[in-house]
């Protein structure tokens, strides 16, 4: 759980944002759902608390769109796990969505910033 700063943004992770985070996580290489959830939590300094269950519909959706592909593999501690990897389409989508996200954040920041003289 979050120890510093604001309370975790639980449940506020919008659907599209979760997709973006998953894709970004998989840039590092194939990973299974459990790892993906933890990477997202750790890299956001625990601010983004992913309800682990909500990850799987998102993974299913992304796989259905062909942005990620999956296969059964063996985890670090010798357990069966379903691994996901980024497809070429997924990589393109990630670039596209990342720049859209940056645009959105930039726009919101410009609105929030007090007008400078």
């Amino acid at each position, binding site marked *: 759980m979050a120890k510093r700063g604001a309370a975790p943004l639980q449940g506020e992770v919008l659907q599209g944002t979760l997709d973006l985070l998953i894709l970004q996580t998989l840039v590092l290489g194939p990973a299974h759902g*459990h790892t993906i959830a933890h990477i997202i939590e750790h890299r956001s300094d625990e601010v983004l608390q992913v309800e*682990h269950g909500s990850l799987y519909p998102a993974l299913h959706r992304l796989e*259905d769109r*062909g942005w990620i592909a999956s296969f059964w593999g063996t985890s670090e501690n010798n357990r069966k796990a*379903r691994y996901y990897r980024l497809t070429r389409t997924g990589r393109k989508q990630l670039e596209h969505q990342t720049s859209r996200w940056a645009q959105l954040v930039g726009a919101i920041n410009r609105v929030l910033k007090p007008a400078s003289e």
Partner: protein
Amino acid sequence: MSWRRFFQREKWDKERARELEAHLEIETQDNIARGMTPEEAGYAARRKLGNTTRVREEIYLMNSAEFFDALWRDVRYAFRTLRKNPGFTVVATLTLALGIGASTAIFSVVEAVLLRALPYPNPDKIVRVWEQAPDGHPMNLADTNFDDFRAQNHTFANLAAYEHRSIRSSLRSESAGTLQD
């Protein structure tokens, strides 16, 4: 894959169930490694993962074409109901049969008489002309007038006249029939 998923609901549900199970195991192991008792570790993992049935339902619905599911349920319901009320089924079927039969018969006539084009070349160029009295009533055409029209015609490829004739006949009389027009 997109549309193919609609035919692999069961398969995907099993896959995802297995996957969620694997997730629980890994999280439980991690929790034990963090010093929890196995029981605690299992509970904590379950809490963290949330309601797996709900997750599976969400994925199952994603793979469903809800419209066709509903349609199929309705069709089966209709057949069950019909089988339960044979009397109603017979009446309904007869009504439909008569209705469709009558409509077809009437349409056949309308089609032949009104809709189908006349059996001549360029049927859309055939027109009907008549003489009209100053008060607007159509008049009967004298044979000689028709001859003049035909002789002086520059507009039509050809002209033809027709006449209505009512014949009244009876079986007894030899020479029956009055001519009109």
